[in-house]
């Protein structure tokens, strides 16, 4: 059936061949065979690789939907102690209705742009956006206006990816570019204490003294003159370590639950799709800087337990799903350790030492994306030097 619909390469619809090809190859692995060289090929292809990343993101997405619903009801009632797992159906449905449109807009717009570029540049539709399209909804607040998502997606796909030649050629992570675009273009919608609980901004009869800030926002206030909490102990009372492991926090849709992220992480590590070297060194980098700051201890924020640091905000999500993007990370094995470590360390540094940005993971990873080729360059140079040395001793 699909074969009949295939546009003729010379016919009227020839321009749309990439689009047809995209759908066809989605349904069937084509009967394309090897020509020369290796006659058999490994079963893995890019579609399957990307599909497994999406599978790994599902726990985060589902938990994120529920979490969105929960904080909506918290904002509605003004009751922080609202039991987390009660009104399960209501919360989930609210979250579903809030998050699903973002997913649809992200995929619709992103794939639309992909199709246009595929037609224009006459290349096949590439699978990269299947993952980016899922990542974007997970790293924005649930209340973000859909038109902003659409704008950010177009910006990211065009400027971060297509201008470089598509999947595999991009320098920086596409989803993070979208996030950065939102962050700088619409700061009021991406930070502050109104946006993290769905529906809070529209609410006029707010309960006195009620704040919708994320734990990281409150932590950042330690470095200012008016801290939200009197001490770290008070902070930990409100946002305990176990809350952040479970994910009972307000925040971007998919980033809050350490457990959900770790389920995805396990899948990616087990299949070998994500590099354990990057994830491991990313956490190691975060911990190292965390302990260093503990030792320096100039303000209360610096005293925060490093373990707690790693569970808060987008740190774990960034480590597992963002830093490991094979295209934008370091490509050499040694380079991966350096890259991960620096990115993790940088994330905490930005968090603690720069009050303008409560969260530093996005910035840290984008910066390291840019530096990754440099790291690789030095790693490869050392291999070259080793070879030259062999020549001299021989």
């Amino acid at each position, binding site marked *: 059936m699909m074969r009949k619909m295939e546009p003729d390469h010379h016919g009227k619809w020839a321009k749309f061949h990439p689009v047809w090809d995209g759908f066809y190859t989605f*349904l069937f*692995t084509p009967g394309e065979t090897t020509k020369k*060289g290796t*006659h058999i*090929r490994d079963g*893995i292809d890019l579609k399957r690789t990307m599909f497994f990343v999406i599978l790994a993101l599902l726990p985060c997405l589902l938990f994120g939907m529920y979490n969105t619903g929960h904080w909506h009801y918290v904002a509605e009632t003004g009751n922080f102690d609202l039991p987390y797992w009660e009104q399960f159906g209501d919360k989930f449905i609210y979250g579903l209705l809030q998050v699903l449109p973002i997913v649809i807009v992200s995929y619709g717009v992103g794939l639309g742009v992909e199709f246009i570029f595929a037609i224009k540049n006459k290349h096949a539709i590439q699978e990269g956006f299947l993952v980016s399209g899922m990542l974007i909804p997970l790293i924005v607040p649930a209340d973000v206006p859909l038109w902003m998502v659409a704008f950010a997606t177009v910006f990211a796909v065009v400027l971060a990816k297509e201008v470089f030649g598509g999947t595999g*050629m991009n320098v920086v992570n596409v989803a993070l570019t979208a996030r950065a675009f939102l962050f700088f273009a619409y700061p009021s919608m991406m930070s502050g204490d109104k946006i993290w609980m769905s529906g809070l901004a529209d609410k006029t009869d707010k309960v006195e003294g009620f704040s919708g800030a994320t734990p990281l926002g409150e932590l950042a206030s330690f470095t200012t003159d008016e801290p939200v909490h009197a001490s770290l102990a008070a902070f930990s009372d409100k946002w305990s370590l176990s809350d952040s492991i479970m994910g009972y926090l307000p925040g971007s849709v998919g980033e809050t639950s350490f457990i959900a992220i770790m389920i995805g992480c396990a899948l990616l590590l087990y299949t070998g*799709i994500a590099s354990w070297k990057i994830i491991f060194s990313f956490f190691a980098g975060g911990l190292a800087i965390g302990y260093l700051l503990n030792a320096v201890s100039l303000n209360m924020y610096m005293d925060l337990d490093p373990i707690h640091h790693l569970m808060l905000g987008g740190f774990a999500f960034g480590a597992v799903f963002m830093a490991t993007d094979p295209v934008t990370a370091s490509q050499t094995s040694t380079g991966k350790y350096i890259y991960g470590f620096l990115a993790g360390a940088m994330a905490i540094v930005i968090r603690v030492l720069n009050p303008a940005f409560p969260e530093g993971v996005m910035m840290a990873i984008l910066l390291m994306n840019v530096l990754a080729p440099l790291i690789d360059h030095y790693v490869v140079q050392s291999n070259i030097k080793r070879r030259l040395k062999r020549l001299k001793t021989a």
Partner: protein
Amino acid sequence: MSKTIKLRKGLDIKLVGEADKVKANVDFANNFVIRPGDFHGLTPKLVVKIGDQVKAGSVLFYNKYNEEVKFTSPVAGEVTDIVRGEKRKILSINIRANADNAYEDFGTKDVTKISGEEVKKQLLDSGVWAFIKMRPVDVIANPKDQPKAIFISAFDSSPLAPDYDFVLHGENVAFQAGITALTKLTKGTVHLTVNSDSTPDTAFSGAKGVQINKISGKHPVGNVGTQIHHIDPINKGEIVWTVNAQDVVIIGKLFLTGKFDATRIIALTGSEVKTPKYYKSIIGAPVAKIVAGNINDGNVRIIGGNVLTGDKITADGNLGFYHLQITVIPEGTEPKFMMTKGWMEPGFGKFSTNRSYFSWMFPNKKYKMDTNLNGEVRNFVVTGEMEKVFPFDIYPMQLVKSVMYNDIDLMEKLGIYEVAPEDFALCEFVCTSKIDIQDVIRQGLDVIHKECM
């Protein structure tokens, strides 16, 4: 001083259809074909015409740019056709074999007594020189070069490869004569590398005048390139020659009998062969005679060589000059629906190095693989996968990319002198983006050959 090396990286692809250890004979009173295309980079200059009578060992053509290097007929008979392609390029020389297999006589010689120059002359005159290849660039050796060493691998680790211990059993004398001849060609060492995981045949273990090295690990452990890299790596400006173990026997026989004996034991293997076994064959023999009645119906691909590096042969085609194996596997031209056979299937029956297929749970299962690409060609995305199957101190992806953008300086620095396309066969197999990596490396080597040597 021999070396023992253990490799951790690599991959053994386990396929259905290993050859039984039985030797069969085939009747070859038919057309034989020699293709100049089997010798990479060669510009042939013809000596024979259609209708000429030739003996086994008679010169058919020689290298236009290096006239010493001659190519001879594997059988005696009549030249029936010379097939030309575009720009009158010679595609093949067809010879109909006679019943009496007459040989050119090159004279028996005692290899222990003659000089290197005499050895060289006999090899060149008889066309046996074509079995000696050189690294870098993996082409026929230039007789004017001084190699720093000669490497022979005593086993083949590629999928369904012929077992050299079986094939060369009883050829001790000829093998030793071949080795002795090779020792005259270099001031350096002749290395013979055996698999330390098995007991090599006495033809190998009893060889004299060579340094016997032991190596163990997964494929490409049997590739001579891997062995050179770990035993005596090639630096810029150095040259190493390599000879296949079976061809050492042909070299030996040339001196023992004075004849170019082009018979070889080849393995007929693969999942589509009914009874895989060994055959006594001759270079350039028609494959139809060998596979007749022994392959399954349906759309199959006949490969001269192994599944990783071999050449596609048509059903009426002939064995190539370097083919020691025929592999028959199913063609994968059927589209595969995503849920049942395509990219979303659970994957119990599909071989992959990636654990997203459940087949990793059965490490000893043997697979029946077809020629489907299992995906579409993309830019490089996934990193780190090639390094797992590439046991060289070389960055494979960076080297491949440097060839793609044709940076000769960088290629040199990254180690192009040490590699041959076959060393990258596993990288090509695992590549998620389905890029023809061996082809890229071949192009890189051609550039190096033209510009730097």
